């Protein structure tokens, strides 16, 4: 029998996620500040107004311990730790006050990119390569007391290279859900990443990267050069 609880559980149990994985651009203040005055110049000409989203398509989805392939001709990849909001109920035109009730849970995501300078019309080649979105096992919503108070970490070869707090979000979780769901419905099993901290660390083939969020999860993946034996 369908119950709300079973719907939420199904969204959580699905691994990899059965919906679409969306990312949010420049939602960490340090990432936006890194652009500086460039936001007022061409090609941007103004700071972002509404949430800017992108998609990590299904060919990018990977798991803990899947190798991340560094394409030939590329020296290093950007490692973007993010908090993923796992949608549990159809989320359309949410109010901030009850937005969290539409989540099934939370998941740690490694939003991998080929380093690139421009956010104007980035090529799909940078973010949409096979395996460029390792994603953890979700935890239920109740496991996290306040999603806006989490700490995100990146380690390379066991050494911490980045530590960021979600308190640095331009749009906190509830507000992001409200503004995004005003123009697009998020469906059960979809994952909305809240953003990637500024100055994303870079890693090379042969290195091992881990992204983690205390209380949410940790995933590790080795970078391998394209063409190297798996």
């Amino acid at each position, binding site marked *: 029998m369908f119950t709300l609880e079973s719907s939420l559980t199904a969204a959580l149990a699905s691994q990899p996620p059965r919906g679409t994985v969306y990312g949010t651009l420049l939602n960490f203040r340090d990432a936006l500040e890194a652009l500086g005055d460039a936001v007022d110049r061409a090609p941007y000409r103004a700071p972002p107004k509404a949430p800017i*989203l992108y*998609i990590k*398509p299904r060919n990018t989805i990977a798991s803990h311990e899947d190798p991340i392939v560094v394409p030939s001709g590329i020296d290093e990849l950007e490692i973007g730790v993010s908090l993923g909001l796992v949608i549990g109920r159809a989320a359309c035109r949410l109010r901030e006050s009850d937005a969290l009730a539409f989540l099934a849970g939370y998941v740690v995501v490694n939003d991998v990119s080929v380093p690139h300078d421009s956010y104007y019309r980035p090529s*799909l*080649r940078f973010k949409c390569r096979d395996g460029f979105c390792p994603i953890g096992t979700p935890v239920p919503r109740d496991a996290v007391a306040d999603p806006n108070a989490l700490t995100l970490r990146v380690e390379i070869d066991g050494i911490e290279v980045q530590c960021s707090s979600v308190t640095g979000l331009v749009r906190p979780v509830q507000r992001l859900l409200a503004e995004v769901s005003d123009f697009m419905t998020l469906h059960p099993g979809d994952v909305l990443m809240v953003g990637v901290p500024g100055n994303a660390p870079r890693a090379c083939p042969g290195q091992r990267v881990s992204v983690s969020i205390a209380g949410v999860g940790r995933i590790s993946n080795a970078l391998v050069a394209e063409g190297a034996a798996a």
Partner: protein
Amino acid sequence: MRRARVAYGGAIHEALEHAQGVRLADGRVVAEEAVVWLPPLEVGTVVALGLNYADHVKELSKELTVSSRDEPLAFLKGPGALIGHRSQTRRPADASFMHYECELAVVIGSRARKVKRASAMDHVAGYAVANDYAIRDYLENYYRPNLRVKNRDTCTVLGPWLVDAADVPDPHALALRTLVNGQITQQGNTRDMINDIPALIEYLTDFMTLNAGDVILTGTPDGVVNVQVGDEVVTEIEGIGRLVNTIVGDAEFGRT
């Protein structure tokens, strides 16, 4: 063969084209107006092309700062934006320029990874008509065209049919046109694509695997005009289908 997915009599059905409308898999023949048309397949990844017709590039040239010559301008959409034939699309009250885009949708039929041009068409299952609306008011210069423009609920219409590739001898010689309230507002031909279908498949599969059910929206020609609440917008592609959509306002969605 021309296949559809429709809702009728309390269930979702596969249906085939029939002289009186559609024939459901269970044998019932039903009029076109009596069913609810869904997108003809449950899509996977949806890749859309910007500026893939030379005349449309010219039309928008005032606002361009990059060329489409270097690399195809491809972006992604989520499946939630899709609706079917004879559906309604919302025009927000604050929009000043909302336009349709008649596009040939290419449906991938088998896994494609690092596919060369010569064998690219082997991975095409079929074709459909797409009407990929854009609301230019919401364009921003980050990840352009951003999802607030291109991934809105109800703003990507797909259908009516998925037409088997075998029934389309040359997908690069099809007339496209759009009619708003019966008046032709957009005309073109798929022969004028800057990057043709094999080129797009070769380009995309060089870095990302395409799978069965993934869809490529191949861009739109010149002639996009503003549409208003109440307009009937028909996007047609020769041999593929005639896709009908109606623009409705915020009130229909309980927004005031």
